[in-house]
């Protein structure tokens, strides 16, 4: 008897020891994994939206007062509403992508869904980063054009400073502002890299798998 026939003898006795899934378990399996990554993108974007929303309500009073002094209240309001509307739109698009994935999709349809989701996430990241950069740039331009108001506000808040410190106040403020802006953008990029880019990589891996499987049919 050759080696494989010996193995065959054992192999064929092994049937009864194999696991056995019920109809319900098998049915559930069909519906699980396929759309889970896209679902995570949706959930995470909703969480992010909630965090930004919560941050908006915990802005300190001094900051609101500062914006008011600088004549930025209405511009800030418009900016905030616009960013929340666009954010909401992206959440809708993520939901749309998620809801479009059906277990009945063919491999090609699923591949298209993955591509669509990846595209949406990229636009979402680009929009968020670009809008943060543009907002910070516009605000800094506004501040530099209204230096007098800025110095007046700072002097009002800090009695220890005097009018002779004007140059130092301006330089200090803009250095502080630039550093804060860089940190904010850096943290956003880091978070997006950790969260969304990781999910996108997994989607890409899924896409490649599907591509290979598709090639063989």
């Amino acid at each position: 008897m050759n080696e494989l026939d010996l193995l065959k003898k054992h192999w064929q006795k092994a049937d009864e020891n194999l696991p056995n899934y019920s109809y319900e378990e098998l049915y559930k399996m069909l519906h699980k994994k396929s759309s889970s990554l896209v679902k995570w993108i949706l959930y995470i974007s909703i969480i992010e939206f909630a965090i930004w929303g919560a941050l908006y309500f915990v802005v300190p009073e001094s900051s609101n007062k500062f914006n008011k002094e600088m004549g930025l209240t209405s511009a800030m309001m418009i900016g905030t509403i616009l960013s929340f509307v666009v954010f909401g739109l992206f959440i809708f698009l993520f939901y749309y992508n998620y809801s479009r994935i059906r277990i009945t999709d063919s491999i090609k349809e699923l591949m298209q869904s993955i591509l669509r989701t990846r595209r949406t996430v990229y636009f979402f990241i680009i929009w968020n980063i670009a809008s943060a950069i543009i907002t910070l740039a516009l605000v800094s331009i506004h501040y530099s054009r209204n230096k007098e108001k800025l110095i007046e506000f700072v002097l009002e808040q800090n009695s220890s400073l005097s009018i002779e410190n004007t140059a130092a106040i301006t330089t200090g403020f803009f250095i502080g502002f630039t550093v804060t802006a860089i940190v904010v953008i850096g943290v956003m990029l880091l978070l997006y890299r950790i969260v969304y880019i990781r999910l996108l990589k997994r989607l890409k891996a899924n896409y490649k798998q599907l591509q290979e499987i598709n090639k063989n049919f």
Partner: protein
Amino acid sequence: MQTEQEHIFVKKLEKNQNIVHKICTFYTNNPHDHKDLFQEITIQLWRAYPSFRGDSKFSTWMYRVALNTAITLYRKSKRSIKAQDYDKISFKIEYEDYDPTADKQVKLLYEAVKQLNNIDKALVLLYLEDKTYEEIADTLGITNVNARVRMSRIKDKLKRIVNP
């Protein structure tokens, strides 16, 4: 919502699930990976189900899609098998005529088979399932001659491992 087609598919899968379990046993080393691969195969089977035209047996079609999925998924992650993994993957077989030498050989053979490349593994699996060379060739999309040549090389290789 469950469609009629889904119902028929799950019923067929339930009846033939042993095929998928056997493939999972061949390509994974622990119950967790086994279940993962089982689910992956289930999903790919369902996705490919529209291509099942009924001109071949459901089980034959199943071997083709399931092996294809296993081969594709495990192509890059070449997992080396440790000796102790054998105990986790092997089945507890009641021996009517227990022969320690044969048991040791089977153990060695399982380990050796696990180290084959994914295509050869598929070939061995189909051979163990008592498939003819024609069926093996058809399932794996290779020629009959290729299947025979590969199989004879595998046999030589296994012989060398068991009788060094």
